[in-house]
């Protein structure tokens, strides 16, 4: 099974650069997710691999085959790339039965009737759609259509699977099941997979590796845990999960422990990792912040609760500490006054940002 190498892709639509030097590698059998907001270039990247978009510069190779190399003038047609792809709309052809849809890639490869039938049966069993061979797409639910699209993509055993937001048309419950099921299938078949989504839950739960994109660039990459714990970039921290940001002065003591001092936390917060400059921004996850009702804890700051949301399994509080706004989660409901918040040592992590945006500050509208 092949690995995919994407090098220095640049693509513009008019003045707008949708891909700005995109480079990454997907290892053999790896499940890599391109995650980002809409318009970040993730789908354009996927379509470049599939051959439906031609970047102005760059190269794409799959195993030992070169798909695209603008400097060498190579641009292999989409139909000659032998990739399996599942589109956002599934694109199950409405005038063909399930069997004809799945058999199409085999038919254009001139396989015999018997071989096609066997293979179609096999792939449909794989996606648990064996009993629907003779149905037409309009007789299928969204989830079933998605499985047919997947079976069609897998019919000629491609080594690479490309998935363009395949779950966005499913309802929440079904989506969760489809996720687990698809991940297992990918793992069992050992498919090198590139997955595009804007849904962080999907990305975190399915990927071996995550690439977060914004504005045509890849901002960070790593395992789901790495991305969540050490986002590195402020945008990544904001996009994956919820985060609060604090800016202040950095001091490093003799043992090498970094401490961030802000007006709200004059005693300083112990931060993971190191930071060279005197000023920095750190990110803190809501579940890492401690909030409690011991008003006599003078090591902690005193917050004002701005609002509470009940999320089912937990409560989320938006609180103001001085000028800073923090998001805190608790498992049980707490009183809204006489509170203290504390940021335990080692939960905050340094983040870089393009514009050096300061702490999350309270909007004027929230202060009343």
């Amino acid at each position, binding site marked *: *099974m092949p690995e995919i190498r994407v090098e220095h892709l640049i693509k513009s639509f008019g003045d707008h650069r949708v891909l700005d030097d995109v480079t990454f590698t997907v290892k053999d059998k790896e499940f890599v997710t391109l995650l980002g907001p809409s318009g970040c270039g993730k789908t354009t990247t996927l379509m470049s691999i*599939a*051959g*439906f978009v031609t970047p102005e510069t760059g190269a794409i190779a799959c195993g030992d085959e070169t798909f695209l190399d603008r400097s060498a003038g190579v641009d292999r*047609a*989409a*139909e*000659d*790339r*032998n*990739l*399996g*792809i599942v*589109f*956002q*709309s599934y*694109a*199950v*052809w*409405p*005038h063909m039965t399930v069997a004809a849809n799945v058999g*199409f*890639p*085999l038919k*254009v*490869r*001139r*396989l015999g009737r018997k071989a096609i039938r066997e*293979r179609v049966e*096999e792939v449909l069993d*794989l996606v648990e759609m064996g009993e629907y061979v003779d149905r037409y797409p309009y007789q299928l639910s969204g989830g079933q259509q998605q499985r047919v*699209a997947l079976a*069609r*993509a897998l*019919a*000629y*055993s*491609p*080594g690479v699977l*490309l998935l363009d937001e395949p779950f966005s048309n499913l309802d929440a419950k079904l989506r969760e099941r489809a996720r*687990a099921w698809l*991940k*297992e299938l990918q*793992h*069992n*078949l*050992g498919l090198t997979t590139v997955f595009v989504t804007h849904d962080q839950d999907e990305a975190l*739960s*399915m990927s071996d590796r995550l690439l977060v994109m914004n504005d045509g660039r890849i901002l960070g990459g790593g395992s789901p845990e790495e991305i969540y714990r050490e986002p590195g970039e402020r945008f990544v921290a904001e996009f994956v999960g919820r985060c609060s940001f604090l800016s202040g002065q950095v001091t490093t003591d003799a043992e090498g422990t970094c401490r961030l001092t802000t007006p709200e936390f004059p005693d300083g917060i112990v931060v993971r990792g190191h930071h060279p400059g005197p000023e920095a921004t750190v990110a803190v996850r809501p579940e890492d912040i401690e909030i409690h009702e011991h008003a006599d804890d003078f090591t902690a700051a005193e917050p004002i609760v701005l609002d509470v949301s009940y999320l089912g399994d937990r409560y989320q509080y938006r609180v103001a500490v001085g000028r800073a706004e923090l998001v805190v989660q608790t498992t049980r409901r707490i009183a809204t006054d006489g509170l203290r918040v504390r940021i335990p040592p080692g939960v905050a992590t340094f983040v870089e940002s393009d514009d050096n945006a300061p702490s999350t500050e309270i909007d004027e509208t929230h202060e009343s």
Partner: protein
Amino acid sequence: MTTSTVDRPRWPDRFRGLARSPRSLRPASAAQGLIWAVVVVLVVGPLVPLVYASLRNKPFYLPGGAFSLDGYSTLFADPAFWEAVRNTVLFALLTTVLAVAGGTAFAILCNRTNLPGRKVYAVLLLAPIVIPPLGLIVGWLALYGQSGYITVLVGDDLNLPVWNLSSIPGMAVLGAAVALPIAFLTCQAALSGTDSSLEDAARSAGATPPQVIRRVTLPMLRPAILNSAVLIFALSLEVLGLPLILGPPAHIDFYASYLYKTWTSGVLPDPPSVSAGAVLLLIVVSALLLVRMRLLGSEQRFVVTTTRGGGTYQPMDLRRWRWPASAAVGAFIAVTSLVPLLGLVLMSSVRALTRLQPPWELLTTDNWNHVATDVTLRRAISNSLIIAVVGGALAVLLVAAATLIAHRSGFFLRRTLAPTLIYPRAVPGIILGIGFFWSYLLVNPPGGSVRNNIWGELIALGVRNLTLAYIVIYPSLARINAEFDRAARAAGAGWWTIARRILLPILRPALLAAFVLMFVTLLNDYDPVVFLQKPGTEIIGVTMLQYFQRGVVGPVAALAVVQILIVAVVLSLGWRAITRIRHA
């Protein structure tokens, strides 16, 4: 993350070899280039010899011709030409005003008010599109002409002042009745493309229905009105049947009939001045089409308009005007379409249609016998049927392929195809006819092999109506998700395979509807053939014109009824296909 440790990989090895290039590297662009070339040659081709012919002082087939502007100066020196120009412009202006005013009013009544019967009216108002135009003119003449049945009834028996159909205003009324569906359809599309919340907002702000229409609906329709006005004006410049049938009593000629008469009865056969006149009209009409495209913004006019929201739409209440308005619309349809058709049927079954004797005393089957026994008329019917079936099928196939290239391929000249497919309908029919006449003479072979048989006529009629197939097929294609093509390409299919196995099968209802429309249009259309028809290659329309000019009226009416019956049968067979398209 789910990880299960079933034995992996589960891919059976015998399928491993499948993941290789599925097809030989056969470039689809060669076929695409061929289709592109066929379309461009067919549409632009005939216009080149036309321009050439207009710049020679003698027809091609006479020896010793030279380049000159004689054709143009002869034309400009003829007072009859300027007379025809004046008549045509006056006629076109009147027709446009009447058709646009009527079409807009009916569109608002049928789409925004609680007019009783509005759904049925919306269909019946389109009847002039499918009624054979010559049959309708003859029907009008029989009833509303100077000695027409109803004219005499009103004038002599009731002693009321009567109209004169054989005048420019008279012809403009008939022209407007025929052109009205264009304005109606354009305004209807604009109205159903915007939901009624704009009007509802004005009503809840306290405006009365007439105020809403004047202040909101009409201004909103302005682009549609302007657009259909330009189109109707352009189409009115080229009418041929009207002046040929209704003009003679008053000696009124229009541009097209002037060219036709100069061509057929001039001293010199096929004079350069006719080609010159054709070139001038072509320039004017093309310029109008460009203006229209500017008004609309390139391709937007064929973009599918869908009703957004709309669920809670409450039509405007006409109150006490409901029934009078409904009766007025019904009367309009009856007077312009239904009664003339009945008149035509009556005319085909009597010796003469006159008030002096009741029609049942004059009943005869002579006209029908004439149609059944006259070799020429029988041949005209069979030729027209062959052209409608074969030409319709070929045109739909060609346009389908060309539309796929224009909108679903990477062919490097694809952007030129859509304008090329839209253009022929703007070229006046007789001009295209003259163009093909010279092309078949000049480009020989292969011109000679189609010049003296119905294939030459089939090509001319088919090319002129390519646009119709395109405007039916393109919106349906635009609705097909482009991910269908991409999924097929990712599966390894090339352009041809995608066209054949994915897009064309999905387009099947649109192709059928396009064929039905093409069949009806090819059967009814005649002006591109008036210069091409020879003994043995008669078609219904041109034969009706020629017989009528010889004064043989009864059989012409019978022939028109035959044509209408064929159209009715084909439309009722194809009706489901057409409605499926409209509601898709």
